């Protein structure tokens, strides 16, 4: 099949890093034509990797059919298959990778393995027009401050233990909150926090450029369960402390790199409070503040498709024999020749 850069070329992106199974169609120009998704909702507790993978396998057919359907193209119109190759949960990643390999082989089109963290940054850049930002990438599995230097996205700071999204999720579960479809734990905590007024002191842990959230999580849970402080106030304080930590590290990276933009991406980017704090920092450093739109904030197939297109256009493909998943694939190990800088 002839390939070109025109709008008639399409990429199917498959995302299955954690609890989301997503499939999306993007044109090679970067138009998001569809972004189908099905999220695994555990009855209780957090994500069980094997159960999540089972969910992905069950919904794969439906979601994968939905993507070209909603994009109004035929599966045969697809020119490239991209998939999330890591980092993430092994069983979940393997489900997506298996589907990707099968489809690429069946359709006779190239396969591109994509780094999940890079994908969050690239979709943020595509959606906001950011060119060379300091990026704060915050989600259930990752908390990373990065910026592009000499061929790679460098990590300036990151969490030393759990991710911020994980901290908020576990807190919510421990204090007895329930998530609903369309209202993840983060959104519920944010809503409660909006009604909180008094601040209770919680541990603030920034070590140089790195962060730690586990102590904060334990203290927040204890503050609610043992000290009987109103849940709204604990949510409020938890957000204030956690987001101030993130802001401090982002500001330091911004001051050091003097980049012209600040990009907020990942599932937690949807939080309005975090957005407002980073906006203040960007303003003080004369940088433009960019935030990924809500529809592309959480894990999704569109970001995988777009990063796959970027990689493919700069000559990268992943032969099937190299398409094994890499559960600990670090951001700065990704060669990113498509980025200028």
């Amino acid at each position, binding site marked *: 099949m002839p390939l070109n850069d025109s709008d008639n070329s399409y990429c199917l992106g498959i995302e299955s890093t954690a609890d989301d199974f997503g499939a999306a169609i993007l044109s090679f120009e970067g138009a998001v034509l569809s972004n189908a998704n099905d999220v695994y909702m555990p009855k209780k507790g957090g994500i069980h990797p094997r159960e999540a993978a089972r969910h992905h396998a069950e919904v794969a057919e439906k979601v994968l059919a939905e993507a070209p359907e909603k994009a109004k193209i035929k599966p045969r119109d697809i020119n490239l298959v991209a998939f999330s190759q890591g980092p993430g949960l092994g069983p979940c990643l393997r489900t997506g990778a298996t589907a990707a390999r099968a489809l690429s082989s069946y359709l006779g089109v190239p396969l591109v393995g994509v780094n999940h963290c890079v994908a969050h940054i690239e979709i943020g850049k595509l959606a906001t027009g950011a060119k060379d930002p300091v990026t704060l990438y915050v989600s259930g599995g990752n908390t990373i401050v990065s910026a592009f230097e*000499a061929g790679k996205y460098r990590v300036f700071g990151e969490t030393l233990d759990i991710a911020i999204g994980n901290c908020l999720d576990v807190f919510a579960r421990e204090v007895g909150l329930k998530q609903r479809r369309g209202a993840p734990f983060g959104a519920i905590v944010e809503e409660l926090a909006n009604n909180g007024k008094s*601040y209770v002191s919680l541990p603030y842990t920034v070590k140089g450029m790195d962060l730690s959230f586990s102590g904060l999580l334990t203290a927040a849970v204890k503050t609610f369960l043992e000290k009987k402080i109103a849940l709204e106030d604990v949510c409020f304080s938890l957000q204030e402390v956690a987001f101030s930590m993130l802001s401090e590290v982002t500001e330091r990276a911004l001051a050091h790199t003097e980049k012209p933009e600040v990009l907020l991406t990942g599932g937690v980017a949807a939080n309005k409070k975090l957005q407002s704090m980073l906006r203040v920092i960007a303003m003080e450093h004369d940088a433009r503040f960019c935030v990924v739109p809500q529809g592309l904030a959480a894990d999704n197939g569109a970001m995988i498709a777009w990063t796959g297109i970027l990689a493919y256009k700069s000559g990268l493909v992943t032969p099937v024999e190299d398409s094994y998943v890499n559960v600990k694939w670090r951001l700065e190990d990704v060669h990113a020749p498509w980025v200028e800088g």
Partner: protein
Amino acid sequence: MLLKKGAEARLYLDEWHNRKVIMKKRLPKKYRLPQLDLEIRSQRTVHEPNMIHKAKIAGVPTPTIFMVDVADANIVMEFVEGKQVKQILDHVSPKERLKLSGLIGRMIGRLHKHGIIHGDLTTSNMILTPYSKVVFVDFGLSERSKELEIKGVDLHLMKRALQSTHYKHAKKCFGAVMKGYAEVVGEEETKKVSDKIREIEKRGRYVSDR
């Protein structure tokens, strides 16, 4: 007079009871809750002089603290007469350079031996006095730890600072730093830390400069 504007604090050169002093003021951050802001700034205003004092006990020259104003997040300390190692390291004789590097290594050894991690070991945070002492300043990122990993990260930063600012002599200088370090903490511990530094380098986690 404003000397330096950092991401967190500002340094002023001032006069205080007829002494030349440095005032380190941690400024309020608009993005965070005033209550939390005050908490963080006062905590750090207490932490830093504390660590500076502990370093002194470990035998590492540090500025004398004259006053700590917690409410105002202000530290008044001695203005150390001398030259930043950053400015002179490339311009002294090769022999002097190795001697100075060795001395720096011994001082880092003393800090680590006492469980003090400086957290920002760059040559701009070291001042060579006319009496040939090296005074360590800016303990703003310091912490207490005896973990190999943390010591490795501390020294790795030193190595990177040498490579980026004094690239012509970085290799020899860092070798001398590690030699001086070994004189204080011993060969066995130095080998462990050196191995750790190599491991950290391989991780590539701290590569952030061009």
